[in-house]
């Protein structure tokens, strides 16, 4: 028995094939302008006869052959708990939004918060600033190594951008500005997360999670241990596959 989980995100679409114990295959493709086609391509690649397919993410309604749709919140929670069963919460900083998910003892979703109104708490903010600094996000750890952050006081990504321009004009170094942005995103995210009774070990996912210096800053702001996993970006798809498998075995 197999299940397929497909997560249609705004930037990339991810899919995994699951056999009830482990992930046996995974695929990631850019979503591009046609999320439906991206999902179909993944489905074709992972196809197994009678596999139960669950879709999640923004485009979850688009794949006609899917057996079930589940929201990204539920899938993300399940998937993260699959990758690390010691966690009790998840913080995800995505390109478009950020979310905080609390799990109960049985790793079901207990509560969640979503922020999709403000760019300053998302990966988009860092992206914009890095473009301004003409630096690549991939080498971020090297770039900021040893730098201490400059305080960025603007509450809004658009104003912060002009604040950064004037900081650079005052000869504040690029790495120090970049660290300042990270501290600002981390503070904002930590304050947001603390609206829920967050505790225990926290799973960090989203594009920024793989960057060591960002995870460290988040840990400091939150005052809790944070872990991640190399497959963190597949958490949604994994959760979808796990839910699909449970559904299938219950029948």
């Amino acid at each position, binding site marked *: 028995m197999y299940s397929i989980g497909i997560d249609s995100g705004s930037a990339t679409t991810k899919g995994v094939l699951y056999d009830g114990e482990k992930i046996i295959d995974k695929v990631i493709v850019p979503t591009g302008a046609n999320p439906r086609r991206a999902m179909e391509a993944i489905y074709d690649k992972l196809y197994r006869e009678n596999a139960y397919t669950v879709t999640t993410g*923004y485009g979850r309604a688009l794949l006609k052959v899917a057996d079930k749709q*589940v*929201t*990204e*919140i*539920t899938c993300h929670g399940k998937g993260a708990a699959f990758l690390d069963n010691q966690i009790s919460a998840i913080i995800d900083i995505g390109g478009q939004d950020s979310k905080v998910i609390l799990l109960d003892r049985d790793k*079901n*979703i*207990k*509560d*969640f918060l*979503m922020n*999709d*109104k403000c760019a300053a708490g998302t990966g988009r903010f860092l992206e914009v600033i890095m473009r301004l600094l003409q630096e690549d996000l991939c080498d971020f750890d090297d770039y900021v190594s040893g730098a201490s952050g400059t305080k960025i006081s603007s509450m809004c990504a658009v104003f912060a951008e002009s604040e950064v321009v004037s900081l650079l004009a005052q000869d504040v170094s690029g790495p120090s500005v970049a660290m300042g942005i990270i501290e600002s995103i981390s503070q904002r995210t930590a304050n947001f997360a603390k609206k829920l009774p967050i505790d225990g070990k926290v799973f960090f996912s989203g594009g920024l999670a793989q960057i060591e210096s960002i995870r460290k800053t988040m840990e400091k702001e939150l005052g809790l241990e944070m872990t991640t996993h190399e497959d963190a970006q597949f958490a949604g798809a994994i959760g979808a596959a796990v839910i699909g498998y449970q559904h299938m075995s219950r029948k």
Partner: protein
Amino acid sequence: MTIRKDLPSIFDDFSEARRNGFMAAKNFKETDRPMIGTFCTFMPQEIPLAIGAATVSLCATSDETIEAAEKDLPRNLCPLIKSSYGFGKTDKCPFFYFSDLVVGETTCDGKRKMFEMMGEFKPVHVMQLPQGPDQQHAHLVWKDEIILLKETIEKQFNVTITEEQIKETISIKNRERKALKEFYELGKLNPPAISGMDILKVLYGSTFKFEKEDTINELTELTARVKEEYVAGKKLESKPRILVTGCPIGGVTDKLVKAIEDNGGVVVFYENCMGAKAIEDLVDESNEDVYDALAEKYLKIGCSCMSPNKARFEMLGRAIDEFQVDAVVEAVLQACHTYAIETATVKDFVNNKKNKPYISVETDYSTSDIGQLNTRMAAFIEML
């Protein structure tokens, strides 16, 4: 005499009421009776009703005139205030147009200052709503304000309002409240008899019907019909039962109810202003002092503008138990401070005193957040 219609078409009649409200308002005015525009459930309808006037809610629920309003008002203001002001200013709202007098209250900061500006182009009477609803002095102030409203109306329409007339309208309003209450208490049925959307259609639509006796009869008949069919076996599937609370919703905010019911829940109770908030408590008909009785009833409304606001939590607690609620959804309009701040207390109350899940969503009068609302509601209901 009445042609028996099927339930869905009765529900649609109610939701048509607002659309047809324009004609109803016009017909009403042609009978030479005044129309009073209101913004809030604190307004004691018994007073205008005593001169045979109709009251109509001017709380706009569409973003059509927000741009026009932003010429005068700050951007970062609740959409209800902006759009209501905008409809008044642009004269696009027929109800506003037909209103001979607009009555406002000093509820939230945004509204009270907006009324001052509205007074520039429309006859506006503002009632000074006191704080501390349990205090004796608040009661006296509010009673005085009700008498002042009576005097304003007497002067403007050149009539005298007697206490006998008010007694009569108190009794009519009480009967209307009872009819509405019996209707929304259908929400107690488990499995449900009707959807939350149908409940909303009726609650919202009934505020645009101007002949009270007719409305009472229609409501009573409707409730009886639903019960009859329920007994005969017409039941809906059991689903997680949701209580909706927060800012006034209706009109465009249908989108929230739709998001809940499209994603596997059913709304069984509305605590907001469109719902039970102002309907639950009756005016004491045994009190000989009508103004005293009115002041007592209206100060009991559990609005977040009030401090302290114990009444809201009493009603929430009772409704969660009596309607066998599984979870609470709160809608907060963008930039509404009082409700936004109170979400923390409501969440704590619902999670920790009632042990039920709670979610609050911020929304506005646009349709741009329907996708996000759907995801949030679906995830919330998956959690139950």
